[in-house]
């Protein structure tokens, strides 16, 4: 169960040997066998040429030779040669084919062996890469928080994602490749030497030249590789900075400054990369030249030796064949060496970033099922101090003792160390000296399983994860997998495989697929109670109302809508009755299959449903083939073309003189300013050739215009009753002939059914708020609320609002809402002590007061340590700590402390 933290090694080879020694050793015997096969495959051609081809052992046509007679040559004292197998007796021609087949067999066997070795290397490399990535990520989780101020997140990501990638590839090569290639080169060399000592010496000499000169030339390449890596990482960091600082860039018109900066960086990278490639190709050239040089020597000297009879032709051919194989392993060996140095640099550079002092020990983050949590007693800080990076004492010998459930206010000026004190108490910063105990537990040394559950810290701006509001709230309850997931069949086997691999590479065995939500922590027993508990907490932080609003405006996922459908249909009916009873039924024009809705767009009237996906989106209707067919068949095309023509004329008349970007273009989204000239041109062509004479492109443009037309709102009088009737006809035609493949692209309105693709509010109104009625949307909104409240549906809507996706870092919420979610998250897990570090600062003053009071009320029996921006807010606390320059200058009850001349009094006067 334990998440073992893998230790890091400073040297890459140390790391590789430590974690893959066994796997590497398993491959070694295969390599040796492969060497033997290789040697045999070099030797065999000589026999083929000399014996069957040149006929050395076949003095006359009837001679035959034993094939595969295996003789173990032993020294005399062991009994001399020992014949294992007499072999098959073959004539010259069959002997040739037998030998050739044996050669083929050797090649196949060697190939198979290499395949096996490569596969094993691949596994090994991927496992090591996985291990390394996991270990690095584990380090990030254990970084002291101060470290994150100095390293850019994008650079961390690049390092784990890209920079260690080649390391994985290299691990497989690290030991096996030199062994294999070295063995191969050595075998070939030995073979040549064995054939002829001089030729062997020549080959050896050339190899030696290669092995000495090339690495020297490569030294500069290494420096370049290092620079290349650093500049690429910095580029990633800069790009992330630009995206984070986008507001600043636009606000200060510095986009060109950024352009210049990136251009300069790219320029530097270009230089480095260019020099790198230039040198690389130079080395390649030299390498090739040296390799080609040797055959020249072989042909000349070897040829001479054959002519004078000191070497047989078979041997020369075999030597040349063997030499053909020699440069490749030597070159690859040199490549390997290059890669080794390169990867070593990468490894060292990555490690430098991750080797951090004060890394939290792994035990501190161990999974503990039921850690001892402070129940009662006191919060006791003794001589608590914090020295910052520049040596200042930010918190200086603070000691106090209060009851665990006490509401404590911390006040002081901005530089008083109040925030740092809060972070010390929340154990987010390790104290330079001193201790904090809570209910007898030493908080400064307790594992995070204790601090993360007993304490909740909310700072002045909190981070939200890009998931739904609900998931963000539940985040604080996910300390450990509480209920294991049950797998079976194929999924179970996959899980077992993953588990095996994870454990093998030092990963965690904890299953992300398990249920991690700890109901206990929230004080509930099941999911349903938890939902209710969340609703309560939302009310505490005043988030219930905004989520209710969001719920009304969001479409319910089809999966969830099943349970809701009936209840919301009840609401639809109740709303209809309510409007009727107030004589307001005309305020909402309901969707009626048999009537044209003048407050809806022409598109909505035609589809009589909500589009799902892009096919019937209002912007695509004009070009949709099926829609065109419907319009043609029902004779609407000519009508709509006419409407489009008139609309185009009106738009040109009205909007021609408006400046680009005028709000009307947005409000009446028929036409964009940049389209005006084009529309004018179309109108001119219509004037010349008539509506029937223009080409298809012009027609489809005109046809697309009227779909956004809302008769009641735009009051252009373009759709008369006769046309309305024909649209209704087209509506029926559209629905009945809709092809199967488009069935899922539209969800038809049905008074008795819930439309998943439409928002909750639209579903309940089942119609459009009429545009001409003053204050209609506001009053209808109020009525809607009342109805939902009376039907007890409000919580349901809020729960749907909880599914709202908050976006990257919560950007889709307002700053205040983001902070409220963070507060709710902290409250939900029921910490023994809630630490609020100016947590309400971003709320407006009125909400600050309300939310503040509610939090205090909600935590009647739990402790709060509240760092306040304004000292006067401290009067609600039972105990007040006053800080000045990191020292605790006063503490006690607000009313007693505020007397004249006190530090608190001074703070109060400053306001």
């Amino acid at each position, binding site marked *: 169960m334990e998440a073992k933290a893998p230790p890091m090694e400073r040297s890459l080879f140390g790391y590789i040997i430590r974690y893959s020694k066994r796997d590497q050793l398993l491959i070694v015997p295969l390599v040796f066998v492969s060497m033997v096969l290789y040697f045999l495959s070099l030797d065999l051609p000589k026999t083929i040429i000399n014996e069957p081809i040149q006929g050395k052992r076949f003095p006359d046509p009837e001679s035959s030779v034993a094939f595969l007679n295996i003789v173990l040559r032993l020294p005399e004292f062991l009994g001399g040669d020992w014949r294992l197998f007499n072999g098959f007796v073959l004539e010259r021609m069959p002997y040739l084919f037998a030998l050739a087949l044996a050669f083929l067999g050797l090649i196949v066997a060697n190939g198979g062996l290499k395949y096996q070795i490569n596969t094993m290397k691949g596994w090994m490399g991927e496992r090591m890469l996985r291990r390394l990535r996991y270990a690095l990520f584990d380090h990030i989780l254990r970084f002291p928080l101060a470290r994150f101020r100095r390293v850019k997140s994008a650079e961390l990501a690049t390092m784990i994602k890209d920079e260690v990638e080649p390391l994985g590839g290299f691990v497989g090569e690290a030991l096996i490749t030199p062994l294999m290639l070295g063995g191969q080169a050595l075998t070939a060399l030995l073979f040549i030497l064995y054939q002829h000592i001089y030729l062997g010496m020549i080959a050896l000499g050339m190899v030696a030249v290669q092995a000495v000169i090339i690495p020297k030339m490569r030294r500069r390449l290494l420096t370049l590789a290092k620079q290349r890596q650093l500049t690429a990482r910095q580029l990633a960091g800069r790009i992330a900075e630009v995206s984070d600082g986008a507001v600043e860039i636009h606000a200060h018109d510095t986009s060109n400054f950024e352009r210049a900066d990136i251009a300069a960086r790219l320029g530097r990278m270009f230089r480095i990369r260019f020099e790198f490639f230039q040198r690389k190709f130079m080395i390649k050239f030299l390498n090739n030249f040296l390799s080609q040089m040797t055959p020249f020597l072989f042909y000349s000297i070897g040829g001479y030796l054959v002519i004078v009879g000191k070497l047989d032709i078979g041997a020369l051919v075999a030597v040349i064949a063997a030499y053909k194989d020699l440069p490749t392993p030597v070159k690859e060996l040199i490549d390997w060496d290059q890669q080794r140095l390169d990867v070593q640099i990468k490894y060292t550079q990555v490690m430098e970033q991750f080797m951090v002092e004060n890394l939290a020990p792994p035990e501190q983050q161990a999974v503990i099922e039921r850690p001892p949590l402070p129940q009662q007693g006191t919060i006791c800080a003794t001589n608590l101090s914090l020295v910052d990076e520049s040596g200042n004492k930010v918190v200086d010998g603070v000691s106090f003792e209060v009851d665990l459930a006490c509401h404590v206010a911390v006040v002081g000026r901005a530089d008083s160390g109040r925030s740092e004190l809060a972070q010390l108490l929340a154990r987010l910063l390790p104290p330079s000296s001193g201790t904090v105990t809570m209910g007898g537990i030493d908080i400064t040394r307790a594992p995070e399983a204790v601090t993360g559950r007993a304490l909740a810290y909310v700072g002045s701006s909190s981070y939200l994860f890009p998931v739904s509001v609900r998931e963000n709230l539940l985040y604080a309850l996910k300390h450990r997998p509480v209920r294991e997931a049950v797998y079976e069949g194929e999924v179970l086997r996959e899980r077992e495989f993953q588990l095996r691999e994870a454990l093998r590479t030092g990963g965690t065995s904890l299953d992300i697929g398990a249920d991690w939500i700890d109901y206990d922590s929230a004080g509930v027993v099941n999911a349903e109670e938890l939902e209710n508990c969340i609703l309560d907490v939302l009310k505490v932080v005043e988030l219930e109302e905004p989520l209710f609003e969001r719920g009304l405006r969001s479409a319910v996922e089809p999966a969830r809508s099943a349970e809701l459908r009936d209840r919301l249909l009840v609401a639809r009916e109740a709303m209809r009755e309510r409007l009727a009873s107030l004589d307001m039924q005309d305020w909402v024009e309901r969707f009626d299959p048999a009537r044209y809705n003048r407050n809806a767009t022409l598109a909505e009237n035609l589809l009589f449903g909500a589009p799902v996906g892009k096919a019937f989106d209002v912007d695509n209707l004009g070009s949709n083939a099926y829609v065109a067919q419907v319009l043609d068949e029902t004779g609407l095309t000519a009508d709509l073309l006419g409407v489009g023509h008139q609309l185009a004329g*009106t738009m040109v*008349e*009205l*909007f*021609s*003189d*408006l400046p680009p970007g005028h*709000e*009307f273009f947005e*409000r*009446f989204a028929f036409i964009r300013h940049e389209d005006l000239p084009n529309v004018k041109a179309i109108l001119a062509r219509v004037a010349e050739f008539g509506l029937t004479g223009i080409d298809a492109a012009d027609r489809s443009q005109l046809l697309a215009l009227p779909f956004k037309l809302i008769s009641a709102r*735009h*009051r*252009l*009088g373009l759709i008369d009753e006769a046309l309305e009737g024909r649209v209704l006809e087209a509506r029926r035609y559209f629905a009945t002939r809709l092809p199967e493949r488009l069935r899922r692209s539209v969800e038809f309105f049905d008074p008795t059914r819930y439309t998943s693709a439409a928002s909750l509010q639209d579903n309940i109104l089942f119609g459009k708020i009429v*545009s*001409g*009625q*003053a*204050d209609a949307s506001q009053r209808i909104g109020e009525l809607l609320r009342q109805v939902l409240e009376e039907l007890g549906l409000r919580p349901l809507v809020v729960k749907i609002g909880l599914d709202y996706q908050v976006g990257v870092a919560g950007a889709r919420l307002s700053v205040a809402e983001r902070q409220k979610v963070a507060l709710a998250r902290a409250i939900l897990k029921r910490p023994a002590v809630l630490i609020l570090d100016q947590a309400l600062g971003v709320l407006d003053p009125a909400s600050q007061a309300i939310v503040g009071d509610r939090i205090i009320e909600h935590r009647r029996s739990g402790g709060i340590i509240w760092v306040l921006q304004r000292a006067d807010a401290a009067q609600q606390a039972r105990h007040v700590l006053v800080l000045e320059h990191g020292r605790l200058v006063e503490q006690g009850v607000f009313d007693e402390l505020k007397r004249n001349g006190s530090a608190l009094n001074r703070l109060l006067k400053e306001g």
Partner: protein
Amino acid sequence: MSLEQEVELIRQFPIFSKIAPAMQKLLCFGSERLTYDPGQVMIHVGDAADAAFVIIDGSVEVSVPTPRGTVVVNTSGKNEIVGEIGIFGDMRRTATVTAVTKVEVLRISKDLFMNVVRQNPDAAIELIKILATRLANTTQQLIKSSTAPK
């Protein structure tokens, strides 16, 4: 009533009568056509002045709060315009306007109105005339009330 009829209507107002037909059309198109029920408040005293109202049908009453209760100071009806002066000064509404009958109006937003005046000197001059008349009236009233026997 369609856009064409609205254009006919606003053409009768001196402020809008002399501006170009396309501009008149744009003015109507860009405005909201609203219905108020009897008793519904169109303008609240103290609110920001963000629009003028052309009354197409029905009648409204203009009232101001005084220490002795709300006092109706004026009524307006069909083919009259209310709330147009307020939008030229960045001030709050000085009176409340309530629908007496069912009222149909054209609500012209502040931006749109300003735009029309900015581009049409004739409309601006008409507006100045209205202001001058009102100023004269107010002066008269002041004189009357200050010379009246206590």
